[in-house]
């Protein structure tokens, strides 16, 4: 594994940084929030990203993608994370899109992937249930056999990017009990199908998330994604990939909020000197710097391991998520403390990073969860 960017990757990263700086300042996110925008993102900007080839970058060429991998996608997502761009990358592209590409039938892929890669269609993955915490297999939504198909009933919570989505992939139980890895099946459900209710939930980070209710939603046999009862393993793989994408977004966020902090340390004066000349703050800044460096290495390693299909992949996903969770929260907390009173006001941007750090930390498992997962995967 090479932990250095190739020239092509450098170019992708630079292009992404430039585009995001120009087209997606934090003020854009703030305006969407202030307007109470129901989607919370800009479909137009999503299409522009598609035109730049970003959405398809990690998809196979035969699906219309660029045939590159997570190692490239994370560069784009990091740039988006720097400016808190709320477009549906984690919840839709990396969850729904990847799941369809890997588990979907030829018909499903043909029907949906072109639209997803063009930024015209959004498919969300509705896996999380109330009270499930981070357990992917704690699924109580039931799919009962009905004729040649199934009838789905259950409740999903904080489903990312579900508001305005065209379809949902719904893991439901065709056998077993909550907590079992086996017996989970993934169904592709039209968002406007009878029995589907999608209600916007306002989260602390003001991104697109929803409470989804399924009341006897009819699914035919063609709506199954992957094998019957084999959705648990698929779900785990897709959440691992989405976790790396989220970690890259976190890396961008922590890097930006740390840059803001450094600027403030250099320019804000108290007692006649820049506050960045105080040694206690210098040492704390150096500490944040080191944690971000470690987080960056971890994210790069995890993306490359998943791209290469290495056996260590799942461990490195946990490494990346754990390091990014701790580092982002640390960087955001230090930012607010160093900004002082103004950092506590809604008017300044640092608070947004603090909120996003927490939302991202508590999505797909916090650092404690991933330490336990690492230990289990490492055989102790």
């Amino acid at each position, binding site marked *: 594994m090479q932990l250095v960017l190739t020239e092509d990757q450098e170019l992708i990263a630079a292009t992404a940084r430039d585009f995001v700086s120009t087209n997606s300042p934090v003020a854009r996110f703030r305006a969407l929030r202030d307007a109470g925008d129901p989607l919370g993102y800009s479909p137009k900007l999503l299409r522009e990203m598609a035109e730049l080839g970003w959405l398809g970058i990690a998809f196979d060429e035969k699906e219309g993608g660029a045939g590159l991998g997570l190692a490239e996608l994370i560069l784009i997502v990091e740039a988006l994370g720097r400016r808190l761009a709320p477009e549906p990358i984690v919840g839709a592209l990396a969850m729904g899109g990847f799941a369809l590409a890997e588990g979907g039938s030829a018909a499903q892929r043909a029907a949906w992937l072109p639209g997803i890669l063009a930024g015209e269609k959004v498919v969300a993955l509705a896996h999380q249930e109330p009270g499930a915490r981070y357990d992917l297999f704690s699924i109580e939504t039931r799919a009962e056999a009905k004729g040649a198909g199934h009838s789905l009933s259950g409740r999903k919570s904080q489903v990312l990017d579900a508001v305005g989505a065209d379809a949902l992939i719904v893991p439901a139980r065709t056998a077993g009990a909550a907590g079992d890895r086996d017996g989970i099946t993934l169904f592709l459900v039209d968002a406007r199908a009878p029995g589907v209710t999608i209600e916007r939930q306002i989260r602390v980070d003001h991104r697109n998330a929803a409470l989804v209710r399924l009341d006897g939603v009819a699914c035919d046999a063609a709506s199954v994604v992957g094998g019957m009862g084999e959705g648990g393993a698929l779900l785990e793989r897709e959440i691992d990939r989405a976790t790396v994408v989220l970690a890259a977004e976190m890396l961008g966020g922590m890097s930006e909020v740390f840059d803001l902090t450094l600027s403030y340390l250099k320019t804000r004066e108290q007692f006649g000197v820049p506050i960045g000349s105080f040694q206690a703050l210098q040492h704390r800044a150096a500490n944040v710097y080191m944690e971000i460096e470690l987080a960056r290495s971890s994210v790069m390693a995890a993306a490359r391991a998943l791209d290469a299909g290495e056996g260590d992949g799942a461990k490195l996903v946990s490494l990346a998520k754990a390091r990014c969770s701790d580092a982002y929260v640390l960087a955001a907390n230090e930012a607010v403390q160093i900004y*002082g009173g103004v950092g506590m006001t809604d008017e300044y941007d640092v608070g947004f990073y603090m909120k996003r750090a927490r939302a991202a930390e508590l999505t797909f498992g916090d650092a404690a969860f991933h330490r336990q997962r690492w230990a289990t995967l490492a055989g102790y």
Partner: protein
Amino acid sequence: MSDLENFREQTRAWLEANAPRSLFGQAGSELEGTWGGRKATYADPDAKVWLDRAAARGFTAPTWPKEYGGGGLSGAEAKILAGLLRELKLPPPLIGFGLTMIGPTLLRFGNEEQKKLHLPRICRGEIRWCQGYSEPGAGSDLASLQTKAVRDGDHFIVNGTKVWTSYADQADWIFALVRTNPAAKKQEGITFLLIDMDTPGVSVSPILLISGKSPFCETHFQDVRVPVANVIHQIDAGWTVAKALLGHERTMIADAFGAAGPRPDKKGGRSYLAELAATKLGERAGRIADPVFRDEVAAFEMESRAFAYTVQRTKDAARAGHQPGSESSMFKVYGTELNQRRYELIVRLLGPDALGWEGPGFEDDDLESTREWLRSRGNTIEGGTSEIQLNILAKHVLGLPA
């Protein structure tokens, strides 16, 4: 019967006769107390009755001299009155910065006219006060404030902005620090000035925090004319007044965190955190199912308890006649950081349930915890940052060189 016992019996009788029946047993309930002021509204008319009767008796400011509307009580008598209010669970008849901050300042630094004018109106709850210290450019370095007051005959013309003026939107007067001599060394050109907020040119806008609404405001002064007679102490000598008041404020904040930080476990029951963890993470054999979180809960509870004993130790020592030193800095920094750790732990215990802001699918308790977590991040900033407190500890308690 001693004089004090006499006082106790008379006061008890007076309270039972005069405090409205509906207020007995109400202390510590939703009713946080009456702030008074021109804009005051009284959801409970008995609160107003209680204020007026207590004020007439001098019980809103028990130890202030009678001539200024106070009760003229000795320290011992005031302690008895406070004890009776606790015993009868009566809410205080009046609260606010007039009683706790500007009143004591006027008693120490005000001239006779100022005391005669302002103190009785404070005692009667007629005027509500707020504080105008901080500015956008002056945080920990308060003395670098820039709000200007330029002399114009018998008046000052005030221009500038104060931030973190709590409840300024509901206050009638503000006590503010203004710069009257830009040429002097920064502490030496500051004046302590009283300003009627009804004066033209004063405007107030609320501050929205990352946690949502707050009592904090920005208060703007645009060509505000303030009589020179409203200067407390002397022109350009306001820093002396401010320091006294600031020390007082920091002690109050530190005491609040010292007292509020750790809560004793319920008798025979689990602490709030332990119960929350057991609910959110489940239990196995009577234990919090996740042993790592269980360990974190125990670590937090233990440090809280050790901190509570440390606060108690200082109080016990004070009662035994040992002068407290700069320990209040320790209480501020440790108490606020404990409170932050508490909420950081709570949101991690809640997991995804901590991510609600509003809307469907979230519990009210969880929504409140999330906002309190965000709000707690300000604890280590307001009332003197942790960094300033650590500097104080290093220099004044440990004697380390500057």
